[in-house]
């Protein structure tokens, strides 16, 4: 008879190297919030417990401490998996792409959505190791398509670039401000 798997077995949701690190970080954050509770929430006089502004954050932080604490204990008593440091370094290395994202967000109101998106997509494509005209062209076409769809067609709220003010006044500048 075939063995019936548990849900965890079926979807292979097992611990990975770094489990202990995430558990400790989670507990540290929960404890920091617990220590901050008296200073970051208010106890209001003549108000029932359940209506206190601090009641619900206390419940949330209390459960964070409880579950994170249990997670740490669980990680401590489990077999150690090799590769924790590599895993944590991988988390740290991925911050590079968060920085790319933030620089892009910082530049859009200055350079304009279309020029900035073109620059961002092409530069990131090169950073990712793609070489040759085909991926560059693909990223440029993608950038133009995104701007045309979201700003030009769907008219999502993205401010016009400050650089567009340098264009000569008239219909071209208006077009850039409204659609690109």
């Amino acid at each position, binding site marked *: *008879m*075939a063995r*019936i*798997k548990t*849900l*965890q077995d*079926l*979807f*292979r*949701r*097992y*611990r*990975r190297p*770094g489990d202990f690190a*995430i558990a400790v970080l*989670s507990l540290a954050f929960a404890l920091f*919030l617990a220590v901050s509770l008296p200073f*970051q*929430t*208010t106890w*209001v006089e003549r108000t*029932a417990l*359940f*209506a206190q*502004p601090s009641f619900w*954050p206390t*419940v*949330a*932080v209390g*459960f*964070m401490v409880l*579950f*994170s604490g*249990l*997670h740490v204990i*669980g990680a401590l008593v489990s077999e150690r*998996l090799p590769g924790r440091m590599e895993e944590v370094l*991988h*988390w740290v290395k*991925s*911050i590079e*792409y*968060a920085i790319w*994202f*933030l620089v*892009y*967000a910082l530049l859009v109101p200055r350079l304009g959505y279309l020029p900035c*998106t073109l620059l*961002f*997509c092409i530069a*990131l494509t090169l950073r*990712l190791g793609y070489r040759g005209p085909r*991926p560059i062209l693909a990223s440029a076409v*993608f*950038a133009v398509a*995104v701007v045309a769809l*979201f700003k030009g067609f769907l008219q*999502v*709220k*993205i401010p016009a670039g400050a650089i567009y003010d340098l264009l000569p006044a008239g219909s071209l500048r208006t077009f850039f401000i409204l659609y690109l």
Partner: protein
Amino acid sequence: MDAFLSGLQLVFTPEVAIALLIGSIGGVIIGAIPGVGAAVAIAILLPATFAFEPIIGLTMLLGIYGSSMYGGSLPAILINTPGTAVNALTTYDGHPMTKRGEALKALGLAYGASFFGGIASIIALIALSPVLAKIAPMFGSREIFLAALLGIVLVIVAHRGQTFAAGSLAAFGIFLGTVGLEPVKFTQRFTYGFEFLSSGVNLIVVVLGLFALSQAFVLLSEPDHAPGDQRVEGNMFKAMAGVFRHKRVASASSGFGVLMGMIPGVGEFTAQFLSYTYAQRTSKTPDQFGKGSEEGLIASEASNNAVPAAAMIPLLALGIPGEALTAMMLSVFYVHNVVPGPALFQNNMDFIYALFIAMILLNVIVVVFVGLSSNLIMKIIQIPTRFLGMAILTLSFVGVYSLRNSLTDCMLAAVFGILGLVLKRQNLPIVPVILGMVLGGIMEVKLRSAMARVKTPLDFVDRPISAILAAAILFLIVLHFWGVLRERKLTEPESAHDHDMHDSQQG
């Protein structure tokens, strides 16, 4: 009847019809691209849909939600790479069938089962509507509080083996929902003197960070690869009819999907687990499961596709989202000041009918589309993963920045993106954070108003529905502990565990 006709009129306006078409076909393609999935697409498109009427925005998002799983089964079966997380189980039996030279049969069964599950779920929703319209007004503050609490308890216990992490993440979500200026006594909570935190942590920023940005970071920070190509020949529609050889498994799996979709906090994975286990236990060939079993494949696809329509039940009737995607849809309602809940069933039945009709149509559109263009979709999805990461990062910017043109939102989203990457790499769930955030807010408001009329703890459960819900919560907690003890005997030893990264719960 008038409401139905009015609903029909709503769906057949050009804007809604186009939204439905784009959502359904776009959803199949998005679902078929490994590494994107409905959650990423919905998170990115969410702010763009705020400019539309609720029915247009919801139709498009529902289209993506309901059709992505059809698309996701295509690479799962042909190249052993699930398009979306909820198609991971499909690879177990679908790909071995492809290796045996039965790709057409496997795809046909998967599409047929998806259609079966989708339609069964909508029929259940339509049949339950009159009952819901009667029961929903009986949900007062304490019942809604208990239903939301049930959702939180379930989202924790549904992550068997990871309950501590899931509990901590759900509590973190509840905490996030409390940050900012609270609206009753007007006191600041956890703002640390930062002005940008006074307005709270925006749900959409968190959703975009945890689902979309994190996926971009995951793809960008890993080695590049592209899905392989595989063609399939033959009459797909004939192959789809093969599902009727397994009516029992398809019906039971759809039933599990409907039930698990209706209950907040559970969702596709538990539905698939129950269906797959049922199908294996009752099969004449249980040893074939995991090696190319038709029943296993049908159990996986019928159950996951039965969830979306059923998940709309608690959302529409009570205003309680049961999983991350309906939590995102709730924000579409809020932006337009439409409050889902009992009043919606009493006053906007045409809107409800329009959604039902849209869901039926989306299943029909999708089944025709996948029946005709599986090979074309396989060609479209040949995108290298790091290039895809760049594309998701670029699109995520539109989602976050178009909300209120705030660089702070972008920073917060980036922080949640890194958190999402860590969770995904740890095989940990994201959904508890989102549900905690949404349900925590509902629970706080409802508990406060419910306690005004409660003198003793027993008063809280002195109405039939609240008593049933409270009993269900206690029963689930007891059942969980009993299940943990029982499963200790069934669980594989630590050395047999697969400690690799598996994106099997970020659907």
